[in-house]
């Protein structure tokens, strides 16, 4: 959003003076150089993803060629057809979608509540300092040793192989992050706005819902995206918690392409990886504009 403002300011400040025009044409030239660099950077960034799709649309035989096939022609949809006809894929997709939705929903609500507490109320936690510290420490905890304790805890509560059990772990790990992202946001919205609405006869709650919440859109989007990515991509906890085949999430399902008793199906893995990424990409493209704004508040005002 703000980048558009950037561009429009540039237009309005352009004065008709001759010197400026000359400067602008030099600027335009420079702009093309920058755009060229951007094209190059885009190609570098995106190439591995292109290569994945190229492999996904090939057969295994074509993949194992001494001369790499640079374009997926002829297009082979064998791998995709195989996956889409596989019940295990749909089951994993449903499971991943379920867990992810719950985690996003709960993490954003919890994060939102706590963010309101730290930025709207006067009490010990005022200021983002402690929250940032919490975020950082949570990120520092070596998760690789915690698996055992987390497993034993869920086991004791009878929550193994349940969506609830896995979701609890995911929410706990991501929620400090969502608080941090949302806090910057709520902080940035002047409380006076709410107060003005209240003077106009709204209740505190109504004022919040009508005035503050809509302004929080980008923040909520950003927090959701972070939670989504975490729940969608996590592998190790899912591995030990969800042991029944019907409970497998997508990252677990993806592992079924490599087996010790048959050849690794590279084309299948690539097609599976492509399919796993598709929902995320769609989501990202939908929320793209708001995401940029969300990052801003979270990062800058952190």
């Amino acid at each position, binding site marked *: 959003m*703000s*980048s558009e403002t950037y561009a429009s300011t540039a237009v309005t*400040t352009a004065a008709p003076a001759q010197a400026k025009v000359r400067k602008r044409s030099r600027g335009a030239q*420079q702009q093309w150089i*920058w*755009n060229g660099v*951007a094209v190059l*950077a*885009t190609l570098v*960034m995106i190439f591995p*993803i292109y*290569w994945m799709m190229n*492999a996904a649309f090939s057969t295994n035989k074509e993949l194992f*060629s001494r001369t*790499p096939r640079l374009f997926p022609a002829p297009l082979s949809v064998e791998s995709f057809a195989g996956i889409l006809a596989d019940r295990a894929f749909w089951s994993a997709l449903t499971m991943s979608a379920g867990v992810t939705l719950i985690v996003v929903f*709960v993490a954003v609500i*919890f*994060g939102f*509540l*706590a963010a*309101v*507490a730290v930025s709207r*109320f006067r009490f010990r936690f*005022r200021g*983002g*300092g402690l929250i*940032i510290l919490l975020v*950082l420490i949570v*990120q520092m*905890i*070596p998760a*690789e*040793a*915690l*698996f055992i*304790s*987390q497993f*034993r805890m869920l086991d004791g509560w009878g929550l193994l192989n349940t969506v609830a059990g896995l979701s*609890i*772990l995911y*929410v*706990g790990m991501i*929620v400090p992050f969502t608080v941090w992202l949302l806090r910057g946001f709520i902080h940035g919205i002047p409380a006076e706005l709410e107060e003005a609405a209240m003077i106009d006869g709204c209740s505190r709650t109504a004022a919040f819902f009508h005035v503050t919440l809509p302004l929080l859109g980008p923040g909520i989007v950003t927090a959701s995206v972070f939670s989504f*990515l975490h729940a969608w*991509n996590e*592998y190790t906890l899912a591995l030990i918690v969800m042991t029944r085949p019907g409970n497998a999430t997508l*990252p677990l399902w*993806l592992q079924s392409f490599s087996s010790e008793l048959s050849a690794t199906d*590279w084309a299948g893995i690539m097609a599976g990886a492509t399919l*796993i*990424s598709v929902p995320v*990409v769609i989501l*990202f*493209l939908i929320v793209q504009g708001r*995401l940029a*704004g969300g990052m*801003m508040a979270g*990062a*800058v005002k*952190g």
Partner: protein
Amino acid sequence: MGTTLADADLVLNAPPRPRRRRRRGALAPYLLVAPLIAAVMVALGWPLIQQFLMSFQKFGMAQQFGAEPEWIGLGNYIEILGNPTMWLVFARSVVFCAVCASLSMLLGGLLAILLTKLSNWARIMLQVSLLLVWATPVLVTMVIWQWLFDARYGLINWVLSHIGLTGMAGFPWTSTPMGVFTIAGITVIWGSLPLIVFMIYSALTQVSREVLEAAELDGAGPLMRFWEVTLPLITPAIMIVGLLQIVWDLRVFTQLYVLQQAGVSVDETNLLGTYIFRLGIGQGQYGSASALATVVLLLTLLLTWPYIARMFAQQKGSSA
């Protein structure tokens, strides 16, 4: 360290601004943070406490299957701190982290600046490509890059051997520690660029145009303007992203674990994440692994503390 902690606390307890005079339910804020605290306590706090207790026990596979654990006091800690392998792995992790974090911050910063200089179409194109990278799960990333680096069927060796480096045809990247660290480094940097770019770019767009123009009128050149005006304004964002990057890169796990399974010496490629995992789940020495995890957490805190303290100090400065 104690004093900096107190400083940070001071910031947190900064005096309320006058407009917050209204009386509110004293309980309400606590109720609002309760779910956060509960979630973190359940998912991390409780297991952390268990892990901490376990670090004072001789807790192996037999204990996992019901045998009574034996309390051995600081035994696990003494063993770990006296183990040169642990320090070697720690040092290796710090170097790996330093290289990856600084390279990705540098590249990320450059890309973010580039984003501010682009036409609309080019900016959106680059942003979308970054989003695609961000959306790619780590496991998938590893599959792709391993395939790119495959000795015989991979694109990278093919390209290298066709631009004159004929010795690179069939080069077995995944069987040498340097090759493995190269692939791991590239995947880590590639994967962390999107977040860095977006955060720094967001900060850059916040820099007011007027201030920059004022600086230009004062005769400041582009470099000077960046150095004197832009950089100080985006420093808080850079600090936070950088800190997250350091913390994440210090405990890289998945990338390396996947690559180790391709068949390289585990001893020569272990980083902290894989070292803890192999000691714990791999070898069933949960007591030692717990102690190691505690040590690593403390070392990480110690290593990053100056940075964190500076960040708090800066916040204090900017809010004053």
